[in-house]
């Protein structure tokens, strides 16, 4: 079943076309990566799909619901972990999780259960009562993802989830994201090639808002004749310049 369907999705800011007639299908349970350099249109695409900004042209359908006409319905089954860490810094980790439970209208029992479940899933026990604003970048990102998962989303948007993290923190987050594969449809943006290759079922290469190529990591390597996604990415982007 198609979970996310983009139909000529376009976003223009005055004379700049941030996303240019993007059309894609993402299957339910798939981990799909949008790959591109800075300014490729990845974050803008995520913002449109998560109903934060309206498309200039085109439309996208999340589980059959239009982002242009049914954003309230869509917000009930999506979650976003934005590029910058999106936490309430003055609250503890537990309070941040509790806040998201309250916003989603969970009962006390369900709230306690979700906090326990996510604390375990993301190994947050040791920092549960610490002020979120005082945690390291890796822990904050982990909390940010936990806050996104608390509503049991069917579609999860992860915008540059490991940006700025050290090697160890990145590896730990990869494990967490891998554990979600198959359970949630994940749309991930990244400009780390190895991340896209390690995590995604399929990936799309974007440049200047345009879709250049979309396939499995192996399919992209085969199509370009390269032995790594990084080399394949460089070839695809350079050829698009010509």
């Amino acid at each position, binding site marked *: 079943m198609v979970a996310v369907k983009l139909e000529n999705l376009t976003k223009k800011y005055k004379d700049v076309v941030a996303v240019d007639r993007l059309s894609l299908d993402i299957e339910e349970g798939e981990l799909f990566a949008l790959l591109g350099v800075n300014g490729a249109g990845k974050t803008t695409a995520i913002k449109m799909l998560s109903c934060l900004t309206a498309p200039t042209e085109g439309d996208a359908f999340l589980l059959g619901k239009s982002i242009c006409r049914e954003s309230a319905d869509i*917000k009930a089954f*999506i*979650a976003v*972990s934005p590029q910058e860490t*999106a936490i309430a810094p003055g609250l503890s980790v537990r309070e941040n999780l509790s806040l998201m439970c309250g916003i989603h209208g969970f009962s006390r029992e369900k709230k306690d259960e979700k906090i326990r479940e996510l604390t375990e899933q993301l190994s947050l026990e040791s920092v549960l009562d610490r002020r979120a604003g005082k945690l390291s970048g890796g822990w904050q990102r982990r909390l*940010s993802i936990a806050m996104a998962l608390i509503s049991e989303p069917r579609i999860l948007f992860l915008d540059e989830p490991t940006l700025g993290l050290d090697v160890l923190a990145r590896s730990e987050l990869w494990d967490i994201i891998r554990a979600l594969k198959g359970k949630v449809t994940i749309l991930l943006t990244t400009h780390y090639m190895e991340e896209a290759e390690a995590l995604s079922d399929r990936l799309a290469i974007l440049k200047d808002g345009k879709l250049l190529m979309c396939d499995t990591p192996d399919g992209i390597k085969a199509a370009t004749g390269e032995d790594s996604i990084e080399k394949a990415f460089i070839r695809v982007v350079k050829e698009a310049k010509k």
Partner: protein
Amino acid sequence: MRTLTFGGRNFKEILRDPLNLCFLFGFPIVLLLLLSAIQANIPVSLFEIEQLSPGIAVFGLSFMTLFAATLIAKDRQSSFMHRLYTTPMTPADFILGYTLPLLPIALAEGVVCFAFALILGLKLSINVLLSLIFLLPVALLYIAIGLLCGSVLSDKQVGGICGALLTNLSAWLSGIWFDLDLVGGVFKKIAYALPFVHAVEMERAVLVGNFPAALPHLWWVLGYAAATLIAAILLFLHQMKKQ
């Protein structure tokens, strides 16, 4: 439920900042002490405790603007607001969630201020309690100004405009520190066209039980509070849509 949850978060964020607590409870006490000491040495009718305490209680509320504006501006500039925009939270949840938690904080500031004034010689009467109740529309006015500023300014701009400019303006134009008749002319006209002096004179009238004198000032405060709140809501919605 969502409003209360979000309001609870805002309440905690404000009260967990030690600097906010200093401004909230420390500053009015220091001012009351200082001006009462001046009054003890050089008697000035304006600094008599019945005149001074309502003024300081109103002036203390100007920090509500700073708290509200800083919190909203920081949330707007961070990805936290983006996250909340993708949840089922409605514009009403946001606006009420920022406004409601500041009302008990404002009331607590008033309680501390009048309690300290009682120690300094203010007579305990039912009017003290009524003065606290009449502080609420004033608090709403300052919170609305905070919503307005937080919706359009960055957190750095908020510090300058709400922290320095507004607190000074509301102090000079309120008749707390000096009698506006001493300056007179255009200055006095401007002061009476703005709500700050009306808030102070309303509180002074309520504290001495002169309610007929308080009412005209109450309309000024309520009018400004309503107009500012409507403007703040429209601006906040505009920003939300723009996002």
